[in-house]
């Protein structure tokens, strides 16, 4: 985390870094788990817009 902090040009104390690490961990774990269960090589972000158009009844 400290190395990323340096790369991002930001400054935080140890306490805040620990809080951020915990927060990022929860988000990363949730997305990774959801992705593992659902995503394939061919999934791409733009599929969202075309799905919305396709699912419209009107």
């Amino acid at each position, binding site marked *: 985390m400290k190395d990323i902090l340096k790369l991002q040009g930001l400054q935080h104390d140890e306490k805040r870094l620990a809080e951020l690490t915990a927060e990022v961990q*929860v*988000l990363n774990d*949730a997305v990774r788990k*959801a992705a593992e269960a659902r*995503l394939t090589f061919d999934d791409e*972000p733009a599929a969202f817009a075309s799905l919305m158009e396709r699912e419209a009844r009107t």
Partner: protein
Amino acid sequence: MRNDDIALWDLSEVADAIAAKRISSVEATEACLARINVWQPRVNAFLRLYKDKALAQAKAMDAELATGKRRGPLHGVPMAHKDMYYRKGELSTGGSAIRKDWVAPVTATTLEKLDAAGVVELGFLNMAEFAAGPTGHNVHHGHCRNPWDQSRVTGGSSSGSGASVAARLVYGALGSDTGGSIRLPAAACGVVGMKATYGRVSRAGAVARSWSLDHVGPLTRTIRDNARMLAAIAGADPNDSTTSEKPVPDYEAGLEGGVAGLKIGLALPKEGLVPLDPAIGAVVQAAADALGKLGAKITPVTLPDFTALYRAAEVMVKCEAAAMHRPWMEKTPELYANQVRTRMEAGFFIPATQYIDALRLRPHFVKEFLSMSMEGVDAVILPAIPFPLPTIEETDTEEQGGPAVLKMVAGFTGLTRPFNTLGVPALSVPCGFDRNGAPIGLQLVGRPFDEGLLYRIGHAYQGTTDFHTKVPS
């Protein structure tokens, strides 16, 4: 019988009266200004009021009408908007201290459309700093206060939009919704708020919170008003490539279709991120019963477990907000409210792969929602806010802090944020009052681009209830 105070009329009534020359736009504008004079010290809904400019604009609209020119169904109607819609050459703060003196270089597409429709602009409205916050707190410009009980929150981030429409200071207002920011103030203030399908309304010239999740939409007193306003602002825009080319329906024309024969799913989630208060559940059940009496078939539906979807949405918001705020976060972090700054910081540390996966997951979440919750039903209804409305003090994260306060504040968006990630239309309609006398919002959710159907259901509901006619005193 019609009230003598023009400010208490609905948008549609006042627009039609102006068109028929029974009243003038100047009279409507003066009525709003008189009410603003009384209510602004109580609710702090306006950040800037353009009295002289609005009266001049109203006079011009009346002059046009006198020559036979009517721009459309909003001609001469006074409105004001969340202070995040740019108007070229004018201040636009985004509710922040950072942009307190910033002058917009362009005009938002939605404002251009409202200009073309003949809307009179009374000014710009209070909001959460950079649209980040679901309660209506603002440490820079003063908290916005709920017209029904000034000790309670308005909901946010479109706090001034909700408060000003509820207090009858304006006939309609633009808000924006990244995790509930139109529907929450609509619910908390007892007005109608529409978050249309992602891509239905242009975001060009509006302050972004998260490009992927931001939705622009109207807050009004009635469904008819809302349908009229959405029709004026919706549609494709070359300045926003995410807008849809689909034609905009005549929403008002479809309002009288009724609900007989429609299948409506009722979702009262007992589990999930936020527990549903039983009293709120009972009010929403009563709303379902009312729709049932009108001929709709009400059937219980289950919502997917939104935990992963909610986290994916957090990843999108934090990463996109961190990217756009980076220059200020580096140079002037002290100019942000603590809760606004700290909520963005994690965005600098989330790997790009996680962010991209969150975006790739979206269509999967949509398919899961449509198959699990909307299979065989035309729309789903559920509460907008799952608990009775708290006070400003109880939810003040700057002054109070602590996990319990943070949890309550986060709980506001438990039933609204999922529909930003899903991109489907979601509407909040007043459906009752909680034990403290604060309004409760019924949320209606539909398939992509089914705004017209949601309006039809909401209009039928308003035809059999009078919650939308109550005025805070």
